[in-house]
């Protein structure tokens, strides 16, 4: 029983780690304060679920989830190109509300608040990931590949241009580099990985509805990125493990479930506040924001 519970938690760690590492690329490395990240996760989950329910194979649903979310990322990059800081945060937040509203109200496609039940468990090359242990391996493999790809991007010269944009975009433009293209890449790639995280979530839970993709779900992801440290992939993974597991003991000290949920959000918010006040660079963060 405990081991099944632990496996469940580790699957969540994997999904949150993919989401947070993806957000780190846009936020920590490129300086895009993107509060629309959860919308990409939502788009990926719905694309994957709808295609799977229509009978498409998992690999196709999974890749389509990433590519679909990436297209939304590119789309979001166009109107937000000239926005920075708080303004960008507000615009991307608006985008997440739009996607949430579509998921809730386009009932012909998404069934609205009724959600999409019966999403099949993934299968690859004839192997069905029906058990949680096998799903854990799948999630960890995807998380590892996502981590390595983003690590490769951020440590390349391409990644240095993204970091330069974060530090001073005007100076990058004066060096003749097209920062709109670069920021679009960052947002698109970040959205791709959020989309595949959404696909994993949909196929793991086998049911999705719009309530899984609200701003409340974004708070832990942002907390992971900031507590782990901006522009630190290692810190992000460690923070994903710690922050997903940290509120779990609440379940064992006898609190009713109606308290455990809000208490979890309070812990994240409190941790975020403490870190921002006492350790603004996070635990492994390398950068100092102006």
């Amino acid at each position, binding site marked *: 029983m405990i081991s099944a519970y632990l496996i469940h938690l580790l699957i969540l760690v994997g999904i949150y780690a993919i989401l947070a590492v993806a957000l780190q690329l846009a936020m920590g490395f490129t300086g895009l304060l993107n509060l629309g990240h959860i919308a990409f996760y939502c788009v990926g989950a719905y694309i994957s679920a709808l295609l799977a329910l229509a009978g498409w194979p998992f690999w196709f649903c999974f890749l389509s989830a990433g590519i679909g979310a990436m297209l939304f990322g590119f789309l979001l990059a166009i109107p937000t190109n000239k926005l920075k800081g708080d303004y960008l945060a507000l615009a991307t937040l608006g985008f997440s509300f739009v996607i949430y509203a579509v998921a809730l109200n386009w009932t012909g496609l998404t069934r609205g608040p009724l959600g999409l039940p019966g999403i099949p468990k993934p299968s690859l090359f004839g192997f069905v990931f029906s058990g949680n242990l096998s799903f854990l391996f799948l999630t960890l493999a995807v998380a590892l590949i996502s981590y390595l790809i983003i690590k490769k991007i951020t440590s390349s*010269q391409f990644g240095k*241009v993204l970091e330069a944009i974060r530090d001073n975009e*005007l100076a990058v*433009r004066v060096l003749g580099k097209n920062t709109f293209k670069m920021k679009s890449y960052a947002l698109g790639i970040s959205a791709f990985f959020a989309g595949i995280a959404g696909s994993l979530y949909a196929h793991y839970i086998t049911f999705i509805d719009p309530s899984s993709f609200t701003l409340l779900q974004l708070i832990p992801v942002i907390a992971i990125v900031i507590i782990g440290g901006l522009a630190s992939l290692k810190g992000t993974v460690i923070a994903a493990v710690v922050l997903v597991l940290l509120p779990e003991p609440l379940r064992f000290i006898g609190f009713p479930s109606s308290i455990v949920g809000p208490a979890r959000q309070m812990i994240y918010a409190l941790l975020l506040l403490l870190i921002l006040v006492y350790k603004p660079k996070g635990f492994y963060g390398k950068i100092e924001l102006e």
Partner: protein
Amino acid sequence: MLKIENLNKSFGGIKAVDNCSFEIKEKTITALIGPNGSGKTTIFNLVSGILKSDSGKIIFSASGGDGKDITDKSIEDISNLGISRLFQQTRLFNNLTVRENLLLAIDNEDTKFLSAFVPQYRGTSADKRNKFEEKIQEMLELVGLSAQGGSASGGAKFQNVLARDLSYGQKRLIELSRAILNPHNFLMLDEPVSGVAPRLREKIKEILIVLKEKGETILLIEHDMNFAFKISDDVVVLEKGRVIAQGKPEEIKNNPRVLEAYLGN
């Protein structure tokens, strides 16, 4: 090399640049001077594409080529046509190292996404990359930062220092280096010696003289008259957005209109 014709720019009701016209000759250093608020930096921002003009033309010809109208072109296009710029305020990439700051100026292939995975896609051979490193080293030698701590290994270590950990003077030199390394035909320097110690001021003067000997064309904004007059071939004087005088430093020094603009009646 650069021709500004009847350029205008207003902010609300204030005319920052008022029907301004002047020309910069190739292989010269020209100083753009004038009291605070006379429109010097606005002209720099108009030439480098940061601001859009209300009317007028900016014509740029790279190394004897035909003049191109660059008025209101994008910042990136203007840079890629061969205009490099130093800002008045430090704009280094603070969380990158000295080497990374300088490499970003030389490497034009770094914005290709696939280059992150397939080095060949960059079109930047190992040979070319070695040349980049040599250029960085040469530039650090030119600005006197190649052997910090008195040794070559100190210099190598210095390349790996984060820009945010540099002193103000070092930041200014690295930023100047970055502007020089950015491939260009025309260099615009906005107050290169502002806020630096006298010794560093002399060093920057030497660097500019070396650049001029190499055939560079430079336009610089400077408040220090002695510095501007000593180093420049031509001086353009602005007041309230208008050109009130242009000529050799000796002529400008004794121009009553210029003296009045600076010292009042």
